[in-house]
């Protein structure tokens, strides 16, 4: 039973990170019908800038929670700026062209950002300091749940609830949902579509940056290539839940994380990703629009 609980928690932790990243994919897809391959790279850049800012702050003599808060704010702003810029360069000029052209420019952007970080920083693995806070409360529950697991699950849940509220109850969220439903109609009712798209990228990138800090603290090391695998998994999670749907992305992330965790625990640890992908194929055979995706009626 204890083994089961460990696997369950491990899967939940992993799943929350996938969900945070999958939200970025699903939001962009919902509005632009575009697979943003550079999203994983934003997450990687988030982890790198968190490392840099945190190191500078620690060398200035700051410790503990203040480092975490300042580094998080800086990283979120910074990653959001990257998301904004990436959209302006690689996707905006291509908005009128066929659906595959932005996909290729996204792949190009992904290669570009990876190599940019590799050249400007390093191609080796860097040790990442554990920024997550320690406290008596966390120590007291550490027999049930690891402190970093606890923080990751709670933080992701909080961030995702905030996003849901934002989309449901603010004017900006309403504009986003309207643009996702019908871009032309939203434009006619006075929604500034360009601004909505920019904001979508900013929010998605901020979520990716938070994911980057959490996972880098948890794993303890980063390099320029971490974004790639995380990106593919998160995209898988988004499709699994039904791409374009926000609760679907969260559910997809959690299902994917749990499947990987139980698969490695009970069957074989060599085939971690195989379980995730096999589950994806199985689910899509029986539900071609993902778990929570709406089956769109085809019309001529």
């Amino acid at each position, binding site marked *: 039973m204890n083994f089961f609980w460990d696997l369950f928690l491990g899967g939940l932790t992993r799943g929350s990170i996938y969900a945070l990243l999958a939200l970025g994919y699903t939001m962009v897809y919902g509005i632009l019908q575009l697979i943003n391959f550079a999203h994983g790279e934003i997450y990687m850049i988030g982890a*790198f800038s968190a490392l840099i800012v945190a190191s500078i702050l620690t060398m200035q003599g700051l410790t503990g929670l203040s480092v975490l808060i300042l580094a998080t704010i800086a990283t979120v702003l910074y990653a959001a700026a990257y998301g904004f810029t990436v959209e302006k360069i690689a996707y905006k000029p*291509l908005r009128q062209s*066929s659906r595959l052209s932005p996909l290729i420019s996204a792949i190009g952007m992904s290669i570009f950002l990876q190599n940019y970080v590799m050249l400007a920083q390093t191609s080796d693995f860097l040790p990442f300091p554990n920024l997550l806070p320690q406290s008596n409360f966390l120590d007291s529950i550490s027999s049930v749940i690891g402190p970093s697991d606890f923080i990751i699950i709670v933080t992701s849940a909080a961030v995702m609830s905030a996003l849901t509220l934002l989309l449901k109850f603010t004017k900006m969220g309403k504009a986003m949902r309207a643009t996702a439903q019908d871009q032309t109609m939203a434009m006619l009712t006075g929604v500034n579509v360009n601004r909505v798209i920019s904001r979508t990228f900013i929010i998605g990138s901020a979520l990716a940056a938070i994911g980057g800090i959490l996972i880098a603290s948890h794993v303890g090391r980063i390099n320029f290539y971490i974004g790639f695998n995380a990106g593919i998994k998160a995209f898988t999670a988004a499709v699994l839940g039904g791409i374009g749907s926000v609760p679907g992305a969260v559910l997809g992330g959690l299902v994917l994380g749990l499947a990987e965790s139980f698969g490695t625990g009970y069957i074989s640890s060599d085939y971690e990703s195989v379980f995730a992908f096999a589950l994806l194929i199985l689910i899509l055979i029986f539900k071609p629009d993902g778990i929570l995706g709406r089956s769109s009626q085809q019309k001529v």
Partner: protein
Amino acid sequence: MKYACELKQSTYIALWFILLTFPIMVVKVNTIENIIVWRWINIVGVGVGAFVLSFFWQLYLRKKMTSQQTAPEKVSILNRLIENPKIYRPALFIVGIFALIFPAVFSHYQVNVMTTALIYVMLGLGLNIEVGLAGLLDLGYVAFYAVGAYSYALLNYHFGLGFWMLLPVGALLAAFFGILVGFPVLRLRGDYLAIVTLAFAEILRLVLENWNTFSFGPSGISNIPRPGFFGINLTPEQSAIYMYFLLIALCGLTIFVTYRLQHSRIGRAWVALREDELACQATGIDKTKAKLTAFALGAMWAGMAGVLFAAKTTFINPASFTFMESAMILSIVVLGGMGSIPGIILAALAITLLPEYLRVFSDYRMILFGAALIIIMVFRPGGLLADRRKQYKFHQPDAKEKR
């Protein structure tokens, strides 16, 4: 001043980029010794680079916008050149002569590079059947390539079968795998299909990597024999040249077959499927059959290319069949212009040869490649040589003949 607006904009953009790249470009932390290195000089580079690039970027983007408004149906110069028989016939002749004398003129290394490029031509044309013609976005094309390569390596290792025996076997096995992938994805559309094909490719790669008793794991299979030449022993140089001519011949076959397919009944069915699935079914095209043949025929070329790849490098391991490879082949198809055979050949040669000749910039070649993908897509979203549908003319009997 004519460009005042652009210059002002570029200044702002340069400042934005300095801010944006500051932590990554300027600061370098050494977390072990707790040292920060500040590389201030990089600011100047980023600033000047961003200024110049954004200036030209805006200039060209504006030019593109205005030209789109004034002449929407303009055919590009490259397209016009290639459609003019007076130009393309001699050009084809020159290219043919060049291909024949290539090994005699250039070094062993160049011949090897060219052979690799020709393998990519085959892969690009094969994927073109799936993506360009049938509109099935396949992000896991490399799986079929791997099936071909591994079927040659393993069947040769276990049963000692030769290259010529296994070339069709590899192609058939890949085609079979294509149908296997095709069946579950029949109901899926667009991006769901893309992620499922990607999932299949990743599963295959991970299995090859971990199932040591079957595929020898990450260390791969070495000492794969080169193709035989009527039982004569060839030196490595000679067999490289032999490989080159083999690929020229097979590429010629690929071009011929894909060209004929494109203008055949099934080819037109694929295009109809790409344009509108529902309308295509309404005209009486069997959707299942069309999709599965597209998968099988596309996969077949990848399988053949895989056999050739294994025979050329004499060593394969799962690291050659990552997602990046699929992305590379897909960029060949999209850069060339979907469905356009000359465009894809051009793009395949460009994409494989450019990084090779960019080795001078060794570290920078991948970053330049990424930038080139973005720039080409922004300024030529239809690809280098966009495909134009064959136009059938209605010949009216001449007025004189009537009389």
